[in-house]
């Protein structure tokens, strides 16, 4: 067992950190917060550095690395609050022309939300009728999609994706509940089924209940072409008893970004606590402040172990666990960091609020937290 970073992985992490420090430092973040917009040249630089093509095989022009390396890169992106639909573009590499090289910016409908809808060249999923929100995060424009992408056990079976018996119960309940069913138990069914089938993207990519009940032409989704084929072939599928489906890799990479925020906000808090003086001493000497910082580190380290392990196992329950712990570490970390900064933390000038707001956006990105909790609950009975 060598559950630690290899030298190559350290080098990769340091390389990404160096690139981002040069290309998107604190000043750039501040500028972007005041005048948001997608920096196409930065996007192309990321592409040239292989950020989007990390998992693409070398024969296809990619870097040929795995999920653990990708997670490290996304953690770094999360640390510096790199803006843009990074996850969707990464997932589109090799499937959408230009995505791997950063020439084409791809976004996706993820759990009823779509980020950077207007700024992207290609949209994965059904974004029809999307409504713009006045985004809480100045760096992440968000649209809400009226029709949540759906996926059901019945669709999975029609697509030839086996559903493990342990999770079939939950999915059955969803079927019975009918069209309005959004029981997250069914999500776990779909996710587990998809992963077990080895065709993660395939099964999860079936989006849009309308597409399924129709001719199947509307079945799109991030790289789920193989799954879609199965569905469109099964013309008899007319059920709309379906639930949300999000690519588990998108969940994991989002968790990696959250981990980046958790680590960064812990550092910012500690830096401030060491230098800011009140009552004649650094505030970090006060136990109340010390304990806030210790809590941040503990949450970060627990989340790190969960995220890295999920990158190795790619098990749905591990990914769901990584998501829950990384969300907690990021959101509470940013909040506590703001608290340590006191009144300064409540100003626009401090970058702390940007971390908190981005953490909130990411926590909503891949469906509800309750879905991950339900998946993990179902896992206990598996």
């Amino acid at each position, binding site marked *: *067992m*060598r*559950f*630690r*970073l*290899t030298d190559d*992985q350290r080098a990769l992490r340091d390389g990404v950190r160096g690139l981002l420090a040069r290309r998107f430092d604190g000043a750039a973040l501040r500028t972007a917060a005041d005048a948001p917009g997608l920096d196409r040249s930065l996007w192309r630089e990321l592409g040239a550095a292989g950020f989007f093509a990390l998992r693409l095989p070398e024969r296809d022009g990619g870097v040929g690395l795995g999920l*653990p390396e990708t997670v490290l890169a996304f953690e770094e992106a999360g640390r510096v609050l790199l803006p843009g639909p990074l996850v969707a573009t990464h997932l589109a590499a090799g499937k959408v022309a230009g995505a791997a090289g950063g020439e084409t910016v791809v976004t996706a409908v993820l759990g009823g939300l779509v980020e950077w809808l207007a700024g992207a060249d290609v949209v994965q999923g059904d974004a029809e009728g999307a409504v713009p929100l006045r985004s809480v995060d100045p760096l992440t424009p968000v649209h809400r999609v009226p029709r949540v992408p759906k996926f059901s056990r019945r669709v999975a079976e029609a697509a030839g994706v086996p559903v493990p018996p342990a999770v079939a119960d939950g999915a059955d309940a969803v079927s019975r509940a009918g069209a309005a069913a959004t029981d997250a138990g069914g999500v776990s069914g779909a996710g587990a089924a998809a992963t077990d089938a080895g065709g993660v993207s395939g099964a999860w990519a079936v989006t849009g209940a309308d597409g399924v009940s129709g001719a199947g032409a509307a079945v799109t989704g991030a790289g789920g072409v193989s799954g879609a084929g199965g569905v469109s072939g099964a013309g008899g599928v007319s059920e709309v008893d379906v639930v949300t489906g999000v690519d588990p890799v998108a969940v994991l990479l989002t968790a990696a970004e959250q981990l980046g925020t958790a680590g960064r906000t*812990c550092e910012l808090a*500690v830096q401030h*606590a*060491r230098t800011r003086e009140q009552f004649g*001493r*650094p505030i*970090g*000497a*006060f*136990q109340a*402040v*010390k*304990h806030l*910082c*210790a*809590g941040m*580190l*503990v949450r970060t*380290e*627990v*989340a*790190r*172990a*969960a995220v*890295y*392990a999920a*990158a*190795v*196992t790619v098990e749905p*329950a*591990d990914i*769901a*666990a*990584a998501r*829950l*712990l990384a969300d907690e570490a990021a959101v509470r970390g940013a909040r506590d960091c703001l608290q340590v900064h006191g009144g300064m933390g409540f100003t626009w000038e401090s970058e702390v609020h940007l971390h908190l707001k981005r953490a909130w956006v990411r926590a909503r990105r891949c469906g509800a937290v*309750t879905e*991950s*909790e*339900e*998946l*993990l*609950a*179902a*896992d*206990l*009975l598996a």
Partner: protein
Amino acid sequence: MDLAHTPEEEEFRVRLREWLAKVLPALPPKPSPDDWPARRAYDLGWQRMLHDAGYAGLHWPVDAGGRGATPTQHLIFLEETEKAGAPYVGANFVGLLHAGPTIAAEGTAAQRARWLPPVLRGEEVWCQGFSEPDAGSDLAALRTRARRDGDHYVVNGSKIWTSHAEVADWCELLVRTDPDAPRHRGITWLAMPMDAPGITVRPLRTLAGSAEFAEVFLDDVRVPVANRVGDENDGWRVTMVTLSFERGTAFVGEVVACRRVLAELAVAARQNGHWDDPVLRRRLGRLNAEFRALWRLTQWNVSEAEASGGGTGGGGVPGVGGSVFKLRYSHARQELYDAAADVLGPDSLDLDRPWVLDRLSALSYTIAAGTSQIQRNIVAERILGLPKGR
């Protein structure tokens, strides 16, 4: 970064599993929690079985009589014994996990030869004489005095919260040998025989109702100078070695047990209908995330220890990372048994039901081996580098 085991590690697991399947059915029934002599005999008996099968001191260095196993093998050992329902270290806890490793790291050749083999063979039980009524979390405030009298120390004072004191043969005892020195610099680490004249042990009842630990009164107890581990007045450094063992490795096997309990809770909840409550169900789901992550953190720490040549197998000392784990784990354990109470409903008030006593004993986890508040100070000062303060 991987979680795969080597063929040797897998072979080790298979052999261990086979051995456990063979010996566990023949074990005598577990004694009552209040019957200390029976518990001592039971725990020592299990240690002897481990010794005879070559599993004693798995994580100890070879020159200390251990097996010099890799930290990963130790992890597999804890995982498999827990999964198979094997006895926990019990009364051998202090000897195997704190005192033994400390003597292995800091003791002389003669001390190692005298004290380590009986621990491994399941012949002697140790207890921990650290805490005092006025020196719990503030351990360096301890007042128990030892003055030199020829080749002996004469010890006076008292200790409290001493687990297994009633049935222990030896006590890892901290005493103040220089009352005039700064408080961290006047402490010495002694191995005290529990049958020495002048020792009185008075059992203390815990809130769980059982006599889990004791007060120990020391009245002119003579301890040979030869029983001193480390230099005189250098006991604080030796103690830090002991404590890092306590925090770094002592709880590892319990995470596996918690994961088993959690799965049992889910089954129980489905049987009694509470599973239909989405709030409870999701809470169990969250606990699943928690204990999965704690297990992964354990694997991470073990891998790091192995790579740095540290960890227990190489005789190295675990780092302060143990504080991170201990902090999170001790709270998670309490949340687990609180969830158990909600699965049980009104039955959670019945001491005869499973998990109810566990819920009570879990209350000690955020206090024992350094309170959560002390652990947070350690994390803040030693890992994050924040200034010392109060």
